[in-house]
């Protein structure tokens, strides 16, 4: 049966000279170049593709493109495996592997089909009704059941090996869809000089021109399409994109398009991306997305072999494939007759069932002239055939069309149905267009636009070729005129097409006598007519509620073939007109988009930029274990031999207390501040006084937000009268700069000050410990390093091997310490030099962990204490707050809550056993035996192992902290189920007088 469902003509777009082998459910088939997985399977007589979502009913193909609700497959294996792929959108490529999903053990025999037999237990709202109680069943029974039942394909567990890229485009006019109106508008806009992008989802441009028997000028529709594309291709102001779906329309005419770059290529080159996501900012968007045919609801209208009439025609005309050899055409309008004629052309005589009493349309007459009789005033009542349709029950409708008068069974192998056409308004709707209902075509069309978007052709409800072309040329010219001054219109050529008579407003057949088969509206979510009836019977009125209760239109296809039929049915039951019922909202993406494409190249190391200090290579060579500090990579510790983290950190910290340590502090934020008003500005920004800071001195400063919370701290030095060098914490560097810019540009523009980030211009090296003075004296013999020559908080310019260096006497460790700053490019050299000279002083590098240990022991606050919820009083910084001047946030500090004496304040904690480390984040409570809820006194912000006292030490922020010193409390961590008795001590655990830094 290989390819036994091919037509004998070769007027389509497949290349029968190139065979392509592929596997479906383990069987090897072949198709041809130009086939989709769908067309190749149909050509091989395979219609059973998958099982439906809720009832596991056998399903085949309904459509031929993006509208397909049923035929979802799992593609490829291993790390390339991809679930829920619409077979109609997959181009055939050699070796393609696909399999059915939502079925077990096989698509032919699926255990889950029991749901179909039990379907009276699965009505609309089933999940809401059934899984409500008892509460305890949720996690163990209901949730896993729903999870399993909701499973469609299987997501791969391995990393995606493919490459995805992002691209940004700008154009004057973006045309979405390359049918007649799209081509016309693109041509008119391009000829008028506008920069045009034309996007087409399919592998071929032309849209309906590829399947409709029409003429434009003296060419066939298909020839005109290809001629127009050649013209556009030759124009430098045009970008043509096929296999490209514009799926999202966002604010300010930002549209997003996914391009399938290499899925259809057998062996793409290594650097060819699989897909490319284009962000297109368009001046104007022309929505020429065409229309989608509507199914009709009738008994068992979901069997494999029941397709849309237009899909059957496209399979014949484009893919040279027959959906069946014994077709029934079932329609409420004239367009399906073109499908009938196409069958006749292939020597197949269809049975035609038309709900209307008659039609005098040209196509209808043509069919009748071929000697085919038409069953008017008839409908399909039911179908038979388990895995594939084999017969239909055709009924004669009574005059009200509410029931059948007589029924007959007719053999068939397919039904091609047409319920008329729905304009594809998704993009217009996404753009904010308020749709209106067009009673002539019984569908919504774009109306009041909010963005620069214009729907034309079938998407605008203009279903004739003449109209589509006229709109296309006119709109293309008009819109392009906004961008060019060429004023060069293109006239619409003459065109010829059959005339059509009106459709009948009938989308749901009566039930066959004595039976209640399911009549599906939404195939993908298994929503039938009876579910909509039930929802309304149970009192759901808003269409949004009916949608959610029944899940109609909520599947991956977003109701492309079902929304309007659902609305029509609700309006029929409610005896309202459709616009009164309203419609649900369209949201991006129009078609499913791979996560890979959304993420693009921002994976792995490219997820975020990595910032490295100029000394990074040295850290790597010296066994540093790194930790991320924002975007920075900082050495956390430098293990020696088989040392674990704790011993390495203790060794590094102890060496600072005993000898001298060196730490890379390049990551600290640095801001250059210049201008005659710089001292005044600092005076407003910081809580302490800055006007009298002498040149050549540094000062510690604290800055607040307006709400009084501590924002950041750091040292700032006065380099000259009007020139300051500010340092910030690593974490807040960017925010502090924005904050300063805000006050200078927005609040106090009268201040003559400029600020500039110099974080990356300086490399900072901290040298800390009792031997640091001796080491620096040796490194900088010209500088008087004595306590008088370079006192605490002093600074001096010098040089090392000809490199300009600035030496600050500042300390974060609480020890005698210095910070050497050199231009970034000399950071590594200077670091190595200090290490080399430092050998005789037992110098060792220390990382962020030891840095933390040293500052915690000293009670210096950092990010964990300055967490945006503490005012200076809370963290022991009250002495930093000037009473004499105003500054940012000062007024907040006098608010009632901020002046209460028992606020949570900083203290130190030592475990009574001097052994157990207190986890950061632990709660502090008074009474360990109290019954919950136990009042919480505060929390542990930072913990370390004190190298000075050789026992654990923590900083905590607790209620009325000062008056708790000396008391015993409990640090509890319910998460870890621990409770540690602790003694409250001063947060200044080591050297509370601060004598070392001044020594």
């Amino acid at each position, binding site marked *: 049966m290989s390819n036994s469902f091919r037509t004998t003509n070769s007027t389509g777009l497949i290349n029968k000279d190139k065979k392509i082998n592929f596997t479906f459910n383990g069987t090897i088939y072949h198709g041809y170049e130009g086939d989709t997985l769908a067309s190749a399977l149909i050509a091989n007589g395979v219609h059973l593709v998958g099982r439906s979502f809720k009832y596991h009913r056998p399903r085949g193909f309904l459509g031929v493109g993006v509208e397909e609700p049923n035929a979802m497959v799992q593609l490829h294996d291993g790390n390339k495996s991809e679930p829920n792929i619409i077979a109609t959108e997959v181009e055939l490529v050699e070796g393609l592997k696909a399999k059915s999903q939502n079925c077990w053990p096989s698509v032919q025999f699926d255990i889950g089909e029991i749901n179909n037999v039990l379907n009276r237990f699965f009505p609309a709202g089933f999940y809401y009704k059934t899984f409500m109680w008892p509460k305890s069943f949720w996690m163990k029974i209901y949730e896993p059941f729903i999870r399993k039942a909701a499973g469609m394909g299987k997501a791969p567990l391995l990393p995606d090996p493919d490459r995805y890229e992002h691209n940004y485009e700008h154009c004057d006019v973006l045309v979405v869809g390359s049918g007649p109106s799209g081509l016309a508008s693109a041509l008119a806009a391009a000829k008028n000089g506008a920069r045009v992008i034309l996007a087409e989802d399919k592998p071929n441009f032309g849209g309906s021109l590829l399947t409709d028997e029409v003429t434009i000028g003296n060419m066939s529709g298909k020839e005109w399409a290809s001629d127009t594309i050649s013209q556009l291709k030759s124009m430098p102001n045009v970008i043509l994109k096929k296999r490209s779906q514009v799926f999202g329309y966002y604010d300010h005419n930002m549209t997003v398009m996914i391009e399938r770059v290499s899925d259809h290529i057998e062996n793409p080159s290594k650097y060819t991306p699989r897909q490319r996501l284009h962000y297109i900012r368009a001046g104007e968007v022309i929505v020429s997305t065409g229309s989608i045919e509507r199914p009709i609801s009738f008994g068992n209208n979901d069997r494999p072999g029941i397709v849309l009439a237009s899909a059957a025609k496209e399979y014949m005309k484009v893919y040279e494939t027959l959906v069946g050899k014994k077709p029934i055409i079932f329609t409420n309008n004239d367009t399906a007759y073109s499908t009938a004629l196409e069958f006749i052309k292939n020597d197949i005589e269809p049975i035609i069932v038309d709900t209307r009493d008659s039609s005098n349309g040209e196509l209808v007459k043509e069919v009748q002239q071929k000697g085919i009789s038409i069953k008017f005033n008839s409908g399909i009542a039911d179908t038979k055939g388990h895995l594939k349709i084999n017969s239909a029950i055709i009924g004669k409708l009574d005059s009200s069309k509410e029931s059948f008068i007589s029924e007959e069974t007719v053999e068939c192998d397919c039904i091609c149905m047409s319920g008329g056409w729905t304009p594809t308004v998704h993009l217009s709707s996404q753009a904010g267009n308020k749709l209106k209902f067009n009673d002539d075509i019984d569908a919504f069309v774009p109306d009041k636009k909010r963005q620069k978007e214009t729907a034309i052709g079938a998407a605008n409800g203009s279903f004739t070729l003449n109209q589509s072309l006229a709109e296309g040329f006119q709109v293309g010219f008009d819109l392009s005129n906004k961008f060019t001054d060429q004023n060069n219109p293109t006239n619409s050529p003459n065109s010829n097409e059959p005339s059509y008579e009106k459709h009948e407003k009938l989308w749901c057949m009566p039930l066959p006598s004595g039976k209640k088969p399911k009549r599906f509206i939404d195939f993908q979510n298994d929503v039938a007519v009876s579910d909509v009836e039930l929802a309304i019977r149970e009192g759901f009125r808003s269409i949004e509620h009916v949608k959610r209760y029944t899940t109609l239109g909520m599947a991956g296809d977003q109701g492309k073939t079902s929304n309007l039929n659902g609305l029509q049915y609700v309006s029929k039951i409610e005896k309202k007109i459709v616009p009164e019922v309203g419609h649900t909202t369209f949201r991006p993406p129009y078609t499913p988009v791979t996560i890979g494409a959304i993420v693009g190249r921002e994976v792995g190391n490219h997820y975020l930029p990595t910032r490295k200090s100029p000394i990074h290579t040295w850290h790597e060579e010296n066994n540093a274990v790194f930790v991320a500090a924002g975007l920075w990579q900082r050495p956390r510790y430098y293990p020696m031999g088989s040392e674990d983290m704790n011993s390495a950190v203790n060794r590094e910290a102890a060496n600072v207390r005993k000898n001298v340590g060196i730490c890379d502090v390049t990551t600290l934020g640095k801001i250059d501040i210049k201008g005659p008003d710089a001292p005044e500005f600092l005076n407003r920004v910081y809580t302490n006084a800055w006007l009298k800071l002498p040149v050549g001195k540094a000062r510690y400063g604290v800055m607040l937000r307006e709400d009084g919370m501590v924002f950041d701290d750091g040292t700032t030095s006065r380099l000259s009268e009007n020139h300051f060098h500010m340092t910030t914490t690593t974490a807040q560097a960017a925010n502090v700069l924005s904050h300063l810019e*805000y006050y200078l540009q927005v609040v106090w523009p009268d201040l003559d000050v400029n600020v500039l980030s110099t974080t990356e211009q300086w490399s900072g090296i901290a040298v800390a410990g009792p031997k640091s003075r001796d080491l620096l004296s040796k490194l900088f013999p010209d500088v008087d390093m004595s306590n008088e020559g370079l006192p605490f908080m002093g600074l001096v310019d010098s040089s090392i091997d000809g490199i300009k260096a600035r030496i600050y006497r500042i300390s974060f460790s609480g020890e005698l310490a210095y910070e050497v700053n050199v231009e970034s490019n000399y950071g590594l050299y200077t670091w190595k030099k200090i290490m080399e000279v430092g050998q005789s002083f037992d110098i060792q590098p220390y990382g962020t962990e030891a840095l933390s240990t040293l500052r915690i022991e000293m009670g210096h606050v950092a990010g964990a204490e300055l967490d945006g919820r503490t005012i200076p009083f809370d963290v022991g910084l009250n002495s930093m707050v000037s009473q004499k001047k105003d500054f940012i946030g000062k007024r907040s500090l006098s608010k009632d809550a901020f002046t209460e004496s028992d606020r949570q304040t900083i203290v130190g904690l030592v475990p009574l056993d001097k052994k157990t480390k207190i986890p950061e984040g632990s709660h502090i409570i008074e009474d360990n035996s109290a019954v919950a809820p136990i009042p919480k006194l505060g929390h542990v912000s930072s913990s370390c192992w004190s190298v000075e006292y050789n026992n654990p030490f923590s900083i905590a922020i607790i209620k009325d902290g000062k008056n708790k010193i000396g008391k015993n409390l409990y640090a509890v961590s319910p998460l870890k189920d621990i409770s540690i008795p602790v003694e409250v001590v001063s947060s200044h655990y080591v050297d509370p007088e601060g004598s070392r830094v001044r020594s």
Partner: protein
Amino acid sequence: MLEIKCPYCGKRSQNEFSYGGDASIKRPQLGEEISTEDWDNFVYYRDNPRGKHSELWHHVSGCRQWFKVSRDTATHEIFDTCKMNEDFNV
């Protein structure tokens, strides 16, 4: 993604900017005697209008200038942008 016209650089995508809140808020003068209520209004309370809103944006990944944007909070339509020392034209 919005397209915002920086008065210094021209039209750029939203991802180059950060939002800075209501532009009509005036910080009290330094040293000014101010009631707690007035201070709280300045620090915490903001109108949340549907429609035209005058707001601050910061061209953080660009020229680093703060400027004013007149935007419709419901439709995102941007009526005008201007420098801090200028007024909107519309």
